[in-house]
């Protein structure tokens, strides 16, 4: 199928081809409001006209700040339709973080969801000389702002409508203008949240998005009947592709939840057929399931456990359509009736045809758990620079440890140092105003460095070990892949976060962050009394439990020759939760390794000494914004015995 030149073209196509199909839903004021493609096209048209009235021109950048709201998605289309470039910004970033992006992109307009975002932009407006207008979606609290500069999307659309009324020719003009867009034009600029350094503006073209979207739709046979729920950050490439690009190209319906608190209820109501969630979401869902089942009556729990075992036994085979004895099929069918079906129903996943997880490694147990229930959960590997898709698992070829085969039209190469490179139609135009970085990432012949180390296994599936630059070596020269180790640790429900050290050291040591929900539940069952997170984290029995987990990880590591030298010798349980507000995690909840190295210098040193405890004092920012100090004596524990490599192998 020949693709159309730009995303607005797809909007026009859908408005014609799928005119009366529901394109978008939004739970607003208690019910799901619906818009058909034709309606959306009309809204976008008047919106675009209004933007033009306000003086927005081809090539202008427009920041979009907010949650998953229909009008913000329409903003993308409206902006793109007049050749301007939308720049979605993470809504939870504070004004100081935001100002860099806005300033760097040189935005002319900012489209904000509500007063909160408007206030942020207003508070830094003096640093943004190019900013001329602020638009907002929700009018609550907005009545006292200057209506000349700060105006609602509704008002803009009214402007547009009036303009259209004045001059009916404009509608035609709008379409002609869209026709001038070409596939190579920049379509959107996405700032990567960068684990290191400043965010970079990834420029993606219409073709990047359109071709990858179409390829993805083809790969998973997604069509106009899909339902998906948009709940991930607008500024993240994934949402832009899943909820915008793929929706436009396939014509399927995107549903926006009512509020962050109601996402799971809203997901249950919508029951999406196509669903993406980072491993974290699946993990916390599973934890919630486990915790909730702890409270179930004994027979029910026994039944639940039984059928979960049954599912573990042949659920995956049922999903893959492998031949099975009749009895097993029956057994599984009963389980489907009693457990899996209802469970999927509660999770809002009973209609899921394709579910993806990516971004990080997912625990194999967690991964298999969902698959065994009959949810077609798959992994993919992607990047902003690739318009997401690099590799993905095709149906029936699923393995928890791999990220699948190269996506359609994607080529993959492994560099000598183990770094993965790819080349695809989705490869970005370049970093905005940063040719140097562009050049160092993308070779002249179009290969892009992913920054991840990995290898292709015998079945042709890609396996990712770690960030290429993070893979270090111990003093005895054995390989140290920190993230690989951390992920193994994090697969235990009681461990929320882990940070491993070892590069240039004698042995591997680790920080562990307990998962409060899981551990407090465990503590309750074991009659452990505690007053605070800190006390629980320092509890000897908690240490014992963590120690057992680490021993298990060590056994696993020892079993793999490539990383067998990286067994953990010493660890500590952190007295506080690693927090994005304190800068310890990125907004996407990734560990800021460097920052932690600096902040917890004393603890790290203690890990490599023979001390049993170490005093530490940290400054934290509380939820209400006040600053405070947390002080603690953190216990350090050595593992009695590291598994013997020979025995293991």
């Amino acid at each position: 199928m020949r693709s159309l030149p730009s995303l607005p073209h797809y909007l026009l196509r859908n408005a014609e081809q799928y005119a009366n199909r529901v394109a978008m839903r939004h739970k607003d004021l208690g019910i799901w409001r619906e818009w058909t493609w034709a309606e959306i096209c009309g809204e976008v048209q008047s919106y675009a006209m209004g933007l033009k009235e306000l003086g927005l021109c081809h090539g202008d950048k427009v920041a979009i700040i907010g949650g998953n709201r229909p009008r913000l998605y329409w903003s993308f289309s409206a902006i793109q339709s007049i050749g301007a470039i939308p720049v979605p910004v993470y809504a939870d970033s504070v004004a100081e973080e935001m100002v860099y992006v806005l300033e760097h992109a040189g935005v002319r307009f900012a489209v904000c969801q509500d007063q909160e975002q408007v206030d942020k932009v207003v508070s830094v407006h003096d640093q943004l000389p190019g900013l001329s207008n602020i638009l907002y979606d929700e009018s609550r609290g907005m009545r006292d702002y200057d209506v000349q500069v700060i105006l609602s999307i509704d008002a803009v659309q009214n402007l547009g409508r009036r303009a259209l009324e004045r001059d009916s020719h404009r509608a035609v003009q709008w379409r002609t203008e869209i026709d001038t867009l070409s596939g190579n034009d920049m379509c959107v600029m996405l700032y990567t949240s960068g684990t290191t350094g400043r965010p970079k503006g990834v420029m993606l073209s219409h073709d990047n998005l359109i071709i990858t979207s179409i390829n993805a739709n083809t790969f998973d046979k997604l069509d106009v009947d899909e339902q998906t729920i948009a709940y991930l950050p607008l500024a993240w490439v994934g949402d832009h592709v899943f909820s915008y690009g793929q929706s436009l190209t396939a014509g399927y319906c995107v549903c926006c939840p009512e509020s962050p608190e109601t996402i799971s209820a809203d997901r249950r109501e919508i029951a999406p057929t196509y669903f993406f969630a980072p491993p974290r979401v699946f993990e916390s869902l599973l934890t919630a399931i486990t915790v909730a089942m702890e409270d179930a009556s004994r027979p029910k729990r026994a039944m639940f456990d039984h059928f979960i075992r049954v599912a573990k036994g042949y659920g995956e085979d049922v999903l893959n359509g492998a031949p099975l004895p009749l009895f097993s099929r029956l057994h599984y069918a009963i389980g489907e009736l009693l457990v899996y079906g209802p469970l999927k129903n509660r999770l809002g996943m009973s209609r899921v045809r394709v579910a993806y997880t990516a971004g990080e490694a997912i625990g194999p147990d967690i991964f298999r758990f969902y698959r065994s229930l009959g949810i077609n959960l798959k992994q993919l590997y992607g990047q902003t620079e690739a318009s997401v898709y690099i590799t993905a698992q095709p149906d029936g070829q699923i393995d928890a440890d791999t990220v699948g085969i190269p996506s359609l039209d994607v080529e993959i190469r492994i560099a000598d140092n183990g770094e993965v490179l790819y080349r695809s139609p989705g490869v970005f135009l370049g970093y905005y105003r940063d040719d140097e970085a562009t050049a160092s990432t993308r070779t002249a012949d179009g290969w892009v460095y992913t920054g991840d180390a990995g290898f292709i296994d015998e079945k042709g599936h890609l396996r990712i070990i770690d960030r290429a630059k993070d893979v270090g070596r111990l003093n005895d020269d054995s390989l140290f892949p920190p993230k690989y180790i951390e992920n193994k640790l994090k697969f235990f429900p009681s461990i929320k976060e882990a940070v491993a050290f070892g590069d240039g050291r004698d042995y591997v040591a680790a920080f562990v962050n307990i998962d409060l929900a899981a551990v407090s539940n465990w503590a309750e069952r074991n009659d452990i009394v505690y007053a605070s997170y800190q006390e629980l984290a320092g509890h000897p029995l908690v240490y014992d439990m963590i120690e057992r987990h680490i021993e298990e990880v060590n056994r696993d590591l020892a079993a793999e020759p490539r990383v067998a030298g990286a067994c953990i010798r010493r660890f500590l349980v952190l007295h506080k939760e690693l927090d994005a507000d304190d800068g310890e995690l990125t907004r996407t909840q990734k560990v800021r390794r460097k920052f932690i190295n600096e902040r917890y210098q004393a603890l790290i040193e203690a890990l490599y000494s023979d001390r049993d405890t170490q005093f530490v004092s940290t400054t934290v920012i509380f939820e209400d914004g006040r600053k405070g100090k947390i002080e603690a004596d953190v216990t350090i524990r050595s593992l009695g015995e590291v598994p013997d490599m020979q025995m293991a192998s």
Partner: protein
Amino acid sequence: MNHARRWSDQLSEELGSGASAELLSVDNVSLSFGGVKAIADISFDILKGEVRAIIGPNGAGKTSMLNVINGFYHPQEGIITFRGKQRRRMKPYQAAASGIARTFQNVALFKGMSTLDNIMSGRSLKMHCGFLWQVVHIGPARSEEIRHRRRVEEIIDFLEIAHIRKQPVGKLPYGLQKRVELGRAMAMEPELLLLDEPMAGMNLEEKEDMSRFIIDLNSEFGTTIALIEHDMGVVMDLADRVVVLDYGRKIADGTPAEVQANQDVIDAYLGVAH
């Protein structure tokens, strides 16, 4: 970009210029129960659009004052003028019909109903559809119900309680119950909203939320508010004018700053013997 300015600032200027109309005035009102004087000869007024605080130590007659204003108690003496109409005796439902709503010191929600129904109940006065239509629940009855539901949903959205929309209120945490009660009073779209200790028993965060709602309510919808509150910080932040009661008498009336400086008020709060 400096154009953004709070409307409340303008409002206080207007108040200062004395342009605002009197919404309610209480003139020489006295109330006693079997010989015990709860309110003795109190007069004060509430201007349209302002936030008026009534403060005073425990037992000062604050709640009794609210009860008099909304017709639950009938004062033995004195006259109440609301929107230019004088009255001495009035049934609570008549007060409600004339545009006075209130919340209660101890949450007085309808425990058997959901959040949604509780707030819907605030629309009772605005619903008029006849019995026969309700019986069949089509036509006007249904469209009326839906029309008001929409309005109620806006309040739910305003108060950020969408996630408890369908939960029975009895089991909600106290702070949320107070919020629902405010929503119920808002649903009446009153001219005058009486809030009896809207922040009693709340933690700091909840108090901040509630303050924000009260300010927004006052500024966005122009609702006149009279509130009883113990937290002086809150009163000083919210109120345009304050009246201070003690042992059923008025001892001070003025802006927060004036009242704070008043010696009688300081004595009353410090518990100087009378």
